[in-house]
Each structure stands twice: as structure tokens, then as C-alpha cells.
């Protein structure tokens, strides 16, 4: 394309609205976030002063922070593993031709598009200790003797949150894999067949290697998103019982709002960002590689 001044002016004009919104709503807040993390500020009065690294030192000595970090890792890993297993399984099932496939795909994808608030309401109703159908069913088939209070006991609460997280987010894995499965050339399978590969061998030698690139990207993306997930965990248990299912985003929210420690909340958010930066850089690298291809 031409390199005329009038031309690059149009280019700059076109990017300006997006850049402005980005600077105002992302870059500047991010910068401010770091500033706040070095101060003690009351969330209500917004009055405060510079305290240096005090917030960070405070966090590092705080038992609750470490417990929350561990919780976050358990939630992220547990839910991620289930999402990938369910995702791969359903992608393969839904890739086959069978009667009503389009409808089946829609049904499976739907939880992902549903508001987390709705998903949580439905599951809390299913998990309800007195009238929930889950307890009723489990008692009925004799797996448990009496109804369980799923969301107010450990480790049941964490298990429940992980299960609901897996249910809500595994369709993302399915969509990504289905898109990729469609692009695997049929000739590969035909060639393998001629070479005498069984169905199982074809899965291991063709399908899985072909999926590995997308799978890597999906795992990175989902671990980033699960790590920062607030809505689902907070709405399921509020972080309880006690701080049994409290994850880092919930801690940020609690410090900043109910407890009014804006500075400390910001410091936790910054620490969170630092942890995630590793994954984000990995993802950026992976997607740059994808771009080259």
C-alpha cells in the first residue's frame, strides 16, 4: 500500500478512538493500580497516604493470602483438567456424524454462553441440601445416606465449585477443538488406513498430534481465565465455608470493598497480575507462532 502522508493520517485517525479508550480505561488504570498498591487508602473516603512496600510485606506475611493462593491453584488446576478431559471427549463425540448433531452441539455449547449468575443459580438449586434433585438422586440410588450440604462443608464446597466450573467452561474447549478437527485433511486418515492403522492408532498418531497446537493455546487461555475467575466462585460459595474456597480475585474484592483497604486490595491484584504474566507471555509467544504459520 502507498505510504502517503494523507494516507497514514487516515490510519492514525482510525486507531485514535480505540487508542484513546485503551489509554483512558486500561493503561492509565493499570498504572494507577500500581500507585494505589503503594498507599494505604480507605475505599469510602478515598483518603490515604504513601506507605511504600508495606502492603506487599503485609500480604507476604498474611496466612490468609497464602491459603487463598493455594485455593486458587487448586481451583484452576482441578477445573482445567476436567475441562480438557470433557472438552476433548465431547469434541470427538460431536465431530462424528449422528442424528441431531447440530442440536446436540448447541446444547453442549450453551452453558458457556449462559450468564455465570444464571449458571450458579441453577446449580445452587440442584445442590440445595433439602430439596435439591442431586441429593435426592444420590440418596435414592444409595450412594449417600442422607442429604449433603454441598456448599457449606469442605472439601465438598471446593469439589462443587470445580465441577460447576468444569461444566460452565468446558464448551470453550469443545468449540476450539471442533473448529480444528474440521480442518484435519481426510487424506491423512485414508493414508493411515491404507498403512494399516487401527482406529485407536489413528487417534493417537493423527488426531492427537493435529490437535496439540490448539490444545496448548486452549490450555493456556483457560488457565489464565480460570485463575482470574471471580463470578463463578464468588456466587457459588462467597469464598466459604470460612475461606475454604476463597480465590485471589475474591480476596482483592473483599479487601477493597467490605474491608475498605483499597491499597492492600490493589497490591494483591498486582501480585496476581505478576503470577499471570508468566502465562500471558507464554500465550503471546504461542499465538505469535500461530500467526507465522
Amino acid at each position: 500500500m502507498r505510504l502517503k502522508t494523507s494516507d497514514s493520517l487516515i490510519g492514525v485517525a482510525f486507531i485514535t478512538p480505540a487508542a484513546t479508550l485503551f489509554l483512558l480505561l486500561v493503561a492509565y488504570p493499570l498504572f494507577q493500580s500500581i500507585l494505589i498498591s503503594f498507599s494505604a487508602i480507605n475505599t469510602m473516603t478515598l483518603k490515604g497516604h504513601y506507605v511504600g512496600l508495606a502492603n506487599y510485606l503485609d500480604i507476604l506475611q498474611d496466612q490468609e493470602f497464602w491459603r487463598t493462593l493455594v485455593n486458587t491453584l487448586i481451583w484452576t488446576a482441578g477445573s482445567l483438567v476436567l475441562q480438557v478431559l470433557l472438552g476433548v471427549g465431547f469434541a470427538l463425540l460431536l465431530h462424528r456424524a449422528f442424528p441431531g448433531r447440530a442440536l446436540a452441539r448447541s446444547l453442549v455449547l450453551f452453558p458457556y454462553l449462559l450468564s455465570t449468575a444464571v449458571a450458579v443459580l441453577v446449580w445452587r438449586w440442584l445442590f440445595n441440601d433439602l430439596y435439591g434433585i442431586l441429593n435426592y438422586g444420590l440418596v435414592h440410588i444409595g450412594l449417600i445416606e442422607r442429604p449433603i450440604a454441598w456448599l457449606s462443608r469442605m472439601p465438598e464446597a471446593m469439589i462443587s465449585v470445580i465441577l460447576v466450573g468444569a461444566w460452565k467452561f468446558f464448551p470453550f474447549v469443545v468449540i476450539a477443538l471442533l473448529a480444528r478437527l474440521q480442518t484435519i485433511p481426510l487424506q491423512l486418515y485414508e493414508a493411515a488406513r491404507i498403512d494399516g492403522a487401527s482406529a485407536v492408532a489413528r487417534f493417537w498418531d493423527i488426531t492427537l498430534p493435529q490437535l496439540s497446537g490448539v490444545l496448548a493455546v486452549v490450555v493456556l487461555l483457560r488457565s489464565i481465565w480460570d485463575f482470574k475467575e471471580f463470578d463463578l466462585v464468588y456466587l457459588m460459595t462467597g469464598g466459604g465455608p470460612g475461606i475454604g474456597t476463597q480465590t485471589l480475585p475474591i480476596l482483592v474484592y473483599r479487601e477493597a470493598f467490605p474491608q475498605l483497604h483499597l491499597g492492600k486490595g490493589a497490591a494483591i491484584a498486582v501480585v496476581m497480575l505478576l503470577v499471570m504474566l508468566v502465562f500471558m507471555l507464554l500465550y503471546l509467544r504461542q499465538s505469535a507462532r500461530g500467526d507465522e504459520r
Partner: protein
Amino acid sequence: MVSVRYQHLHKAFGDGSVALQDFSLEVADGEFLTFLGPSGCGKTTTLRMTAGLETPTSGEIFFGERPVVDLPPGRRNIAMVFQSYALYPHMTVQQNLEYPLRKQGVARDERARRATALAATLQLDALLHRRPKHLSGGQQQRVALGRALIREPEVFLLDEPLSNLDAELRTQMRAELIQLHRRIGRTMIYVTHDQVEAMTMSTRIAVMSKGELQQVGTPLEIYREPRNRFVAAFVGSPAMNFVEGGIELRDGRAVFRAAGLEVALPDARSARLAGLARASGVLAGIRPEHLSLEPGSGEGRVLVVEAMGHEDIVTAETPAGRIVVRSAGTATAAAGDLVPLRVDPEKLHLFDAASGERLAC
């Protein structure tokens, strides 16, 4: 009606690669000029600079007396047919044809009238309300041509417009383009890497390589007197044979000599070549059609015979290297045969082996 003049045109890209170097050329008013060369030779870049889609790093382009480098494409009064046709996929054939007129502010009725009239001459009348993707390759080609014709531009630019057509359609479209040019008489600049297209359609051909103009001339000039080794090798099919050797004077007569090959040059050329006699460093170019399987110049062992029906393409191994011969007739040789070779001395091209330039003769 306008001529196109390139003056010391130079184009370098941001990454430092040079696409065009000191390119000067005048395309006469009403001429059909073809830029011919392999991909990456700068022909498309030159065309795009003519269109205003690229800006030269330095140099100037004139349409008639008017410098155009600073004009946007839409104000140069040109039309361009793209290799991909670039038909607007969301518009019907009629809307595609009308688009240039719409941008000129032509009234709706007038637009429709001209589009319909043009469609009739291009045999597109039945397709006016179709979208491009529902057309065959040949039909898309016609629409692209129609969109170029409708605004009656001063200069037509065609960027490999036939390369996506099948062989039969390509031949047919070549004939139609020749007729079209004759009918409207506008200046046309055509870009191709296909020498057949260049030879059959052009008034003149500009052969390009590595960003430099190699030779400009009529198709016959290019074929008969290639200025250097590149032009000689690029034009002609099968490609010219090259044999390295020397020129020696024998009884006042110039003789080209290579390993196992000798061609005595005709008298007229001998005189001019006398001063160039040397033992080596001469490259002889021999077109396959100027060789025959007769005694005279040397001999070779046949490797492959490709029977075309009316002639054989014979590849033979000689001490001077592999030589391809177009041998008229059927079953003129068989693999393994030792065959005599005769070069038509009138048609022998001589180049300096080091520079590749044609030797004066």
C-alpha cells in the same frame, strides 16, 4: 488519449529490498506494451506505481505532459484489471460494472444504461443480477474487463489477467483482448510472465529482470536480437541452448568453436566478428528450432525424445553439454542414437560469457 512516460523511476521497500532501479521508458499513445519477466522482476510494482497503488521512492511518471505520482489512483483516469479480478463479492454484476460510474457521480439512469449496453457487448446481459461467486472464471474475467472499460479511461492496466483461466479460454481471451485494443485504441500496459501472451498481443515488449529493464522492442526484435543472455533465455520455448566456447579466425572467416561443436559464421558476420576473436569466454545461444538432426556442426547422444506429433523435441548429450533440438517430422530419432547436429549459422546468437551482453553482430 495519452502516452505514459517513466522517468528514472526507483522503488525500494521498507525492508531495504529494491524493486525497481532507474527505470525509464515511454509507452506511446495507443500502444499495447507488455512488461515481461519472472516473478520479482519489478513488473507488477511498476504497474502498481502507474496505478497509484504504490509510490515511487524517486523518479516521475507522466501521463502525457501531466506528472501523476502525487495523484491518488481514482484521479488518474485509469482502469485496472487485477489478476484475482477483484470483483466486489457483495455486489451484483451490474453493481460491479456501475461502481466506477457511481464514484464519478453519474446519475442512476445513465449508469444503468451504460452498464446494460456494455454488458451486451461482453455477453453478460443474462448475468447482470448475479453475484460474482455464481459466475464461471471466464465470466468473472469479462466482468472485470467490463468494469475497466465502463469509465472509458485513458490508460488500461492489466495485471496478469489471464493467468487464472484454463488453457483454451486463455487462447480465446488473448484474441479478444487484441481485438479490443484495436477497437478502442487506448494505451494498454499489460503485465505477464507468460511469453506467449507477450509475443502474441503486444505492440512492444519490455523485458525486465531483478528490477531492471533488460530490453524494449517489438516481439520480433526481442526474439531475433535478444540484447543479453537473460532476454535470450527467457523468451522462446523450449528455451534457448547455451554453449560456451571461443571464436577463432580461419582463412579470414570467423568460426564459433566449443567442445565437439563448430559453427562457421556467414561472411557478413565474419567481418564484424574479426576483432572479437578469442579462445574462450564466448557464449553461443542456439534456439532449438534453429538446430536440425543433420551433419554439419557436431553430434550428440539422444537422451529423450518427446513426440509432439508434428515434431520431436530431442534432448541430446554432447561434449559441450545438453542440447535440445526441435526436429520437424515424426520419429526422427530414438533414445540412445548417436545423431548429427547442424546449427543454422544465420541464427546463432553470440554473447560475452562474463557480462552476458550480446556481441556486436
